[in-house]
């Protein structure tokens, strides 16, 4: 099991790895990814990076928004658009108050490009030769963009990624909901988004961990929409899918906790393939120790989901040696019984021992014995 310091997600978040220009952080209604996203932003601010916050659904927390290194691109639903909306009710044509048209996507792209250019200019003025601090572009979130136009959203994300790749040590992080709609087109857009991303972090509630462990099964009852440990704003599970430049895709599951004071992320390794602890079984000393041990290990590894079966294999080996050991009635013989048994003379035993195995057959009257060899006419 990997330690916390060797976790890929930790190396990504703390910028020990720069091989993921685009990171998609996905969430569900049961566990928000907003605290995780904001903790990543705070990590970047702590490393003296510049932030371009593209606010589509909401503004970031006040400490991030008020930071001098943060540039806000406010694309939220404006009050003017809310007060001016007057669309008739039509389920087929009404895209809602918050829909973004092609012009809106162009303006959003231009606003992001301007934000990046401003920051690059500031960095060059500050250091003269270009700063090594880098830029983090945060898009919160992609849901309204995907609702308006999935194609335009994918194109926007691709262009922003390309723009960020030209700035060293820079990255794009976008938040996205993976459970909002059940339609095929949404899942297509979600898959396309994950294909674009260099790393995908799926945030889950801590309660989901037990469902990933081997041996867990559902009791058949429907899970409530929201349980007590959902939407924990300090803890959760993170499933990382990291696509490296070599083509290798690695998966990792870890738990994270946001420190109450520093508001930064701490990760802990989680082993979802861990086998449940089994009781120590007694082996038969008459069996070969090495072979028996390896057999037990193989039986444990082969059946990780059946701890009761594994626990039963060791006692089963004892039963092979003495099948009458655990019976409720006594099958054993006393010494006198054993001696009397040995003194019983079995019938026909002497005849079996004395004879050489010949067969003595007495012919009946109807039998017609032919002594010739039936194979005499064969010309072999």
């Amino acid at each position, binding site marked *: 099991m990997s330690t916390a310091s060797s976790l890929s997600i930790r190396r990504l978040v703390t910028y020990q790895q720069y091989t993921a220009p685009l990171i998609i952080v996905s*969430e*569900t*209604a049961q566990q*928000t990814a*907003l*605290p995780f996203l*904001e903790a990543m932003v705070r990590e970047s601010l702590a490393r003296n990076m510049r932030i371009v916050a593209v606010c589509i*659904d*909401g503004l*970031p*927390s*006040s*400490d991030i928004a008020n930071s001098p290194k943060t540039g806000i691109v406010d694309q*939220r*639903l404006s*009050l003017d658009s*809310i*007060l*001016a*909306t*007057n669309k*008739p*009710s039509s*389920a087929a044509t*009404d*895209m*809602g*108050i*918050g*829909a973004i048209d092609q012009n809106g996507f162009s303006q959003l792209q231009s606003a992001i490009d301007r934000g990046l250019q401003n920051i690059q200019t500031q960095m060059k003025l500050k250091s003269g030769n270009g700063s090594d601090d880098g830029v983090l572009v945060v898009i919160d979130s992609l*849901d309204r963009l995907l*609702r308006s136009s999935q194609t335009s959203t994918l194109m926007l994300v691709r262009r922003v990624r390309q723009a960020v790749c030209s700035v060293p040590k820079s990255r794009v992080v976008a938040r996205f*909901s993976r*459970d*909002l*709609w*059940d339609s095929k087109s949404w899942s297509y857009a979600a898959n396309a988004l994950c294909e674009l991303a260099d790393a995908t972090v799926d945030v889950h509630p801590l309660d989901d961990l037990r469902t990933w462990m081997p041996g867990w099964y559902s009791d058949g009852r429907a899970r*409530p*929409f*929201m*349980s*007590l*440990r*959902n*939407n*924990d*704003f300090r803890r959760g599970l993170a499933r990382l899918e990291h696509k490296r430049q070599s083509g290798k895709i690695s998966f990792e599951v870890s738990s994270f906790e946001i420190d109450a004071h520093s508001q930064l992320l701490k990760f802990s390794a989680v082993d979802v393939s861990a086998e449940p602890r089994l009781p120590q079984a007694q082996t038969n000393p008459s069996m070969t120790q090495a072979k028996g041990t390896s057999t037990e290990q193989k039986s444990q590894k082969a059946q990780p989901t059946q701890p009761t079966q594994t626990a039963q294999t060791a006692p089963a080996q004892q039963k092979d040696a003495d099948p009458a050991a655990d019976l409720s009635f006594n099958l054993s013989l006393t010494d006198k019984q054993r001696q009397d048994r040995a003194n019983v003379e079995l019938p026909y035993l002497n005849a079996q021992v004395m004879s050489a195995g010949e067969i003595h057959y007495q012919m009946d009257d109807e039998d017609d014995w032919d002594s010739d060899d039936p194979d005499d006419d064969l010309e072999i």
Partner: protein
Amino acid sequence: MSLYKTLSSSLNWPTGHGHPSTTTLLTSISLEPTHTFLIPHFLTTSTSDKQSPFLLLSFTQTLSHYTHILRKQGINQTKHKTIFINALNTQNDLGATLPQVTRPDYTLRRTEWPEFFKFLDSFKQCTLFIDGVCSLLDLGEDVEVVGDFVVGCKRIVEGNNGRLIVGLFLDEFTDPLVSRLVRSAHYYLGFEPLASGSSADVSGQLTVVPGHLYCQVHDSSQEFKPMLLHYRVSDTTVQFFSPGQSRIVL
């Protein structure tokens, strides 16, 4: 002054409700909208300073229904600055036919949402309670449209330092809408039947968890605590208690 002091103290709400400029989402699973008995609580809490109005926007019931609930709880509606917005019946001559006591202060029609937003923007530091917004889905509206309507109300109310409370029914048809709204909420209160089965002494259970936006509410002195509470609805009041701590059960 909050009506349900046990609920306020359990959730660490000294003022009886959440922080200003926040959104609370209430859901009910049972056929009876059990979240409506929180209306008197939010009404008395928000109008305690006699400056902040309480706006009740209902898509499912008339004013007389809520007046009856308030009367049962011993609350005199005339002593609180309450504004009822009718979205159930949109007939033009509604105001003329009803008596003054049950006449709504505003009627919301589907084609007049901009006028309603302007009407809402005229109130400062108000508390807006939207009851039964899921009825719009039954009328054929899309989830995005209904969600944007609530988000529009949220932007206006929170921009004026007010509070938004949305109550709706939760089932497999309204699940997408609830999933959308919980992302815009700071608090989530889910009313469910008792998990262990029906009981004459306990009416149901209440699961209180943070919404998606709670992480942006920074107040260590008033930290919200996720909690599971049981409640019992009697004729004139509602009692909240920790599981197994009811006097009736003990």
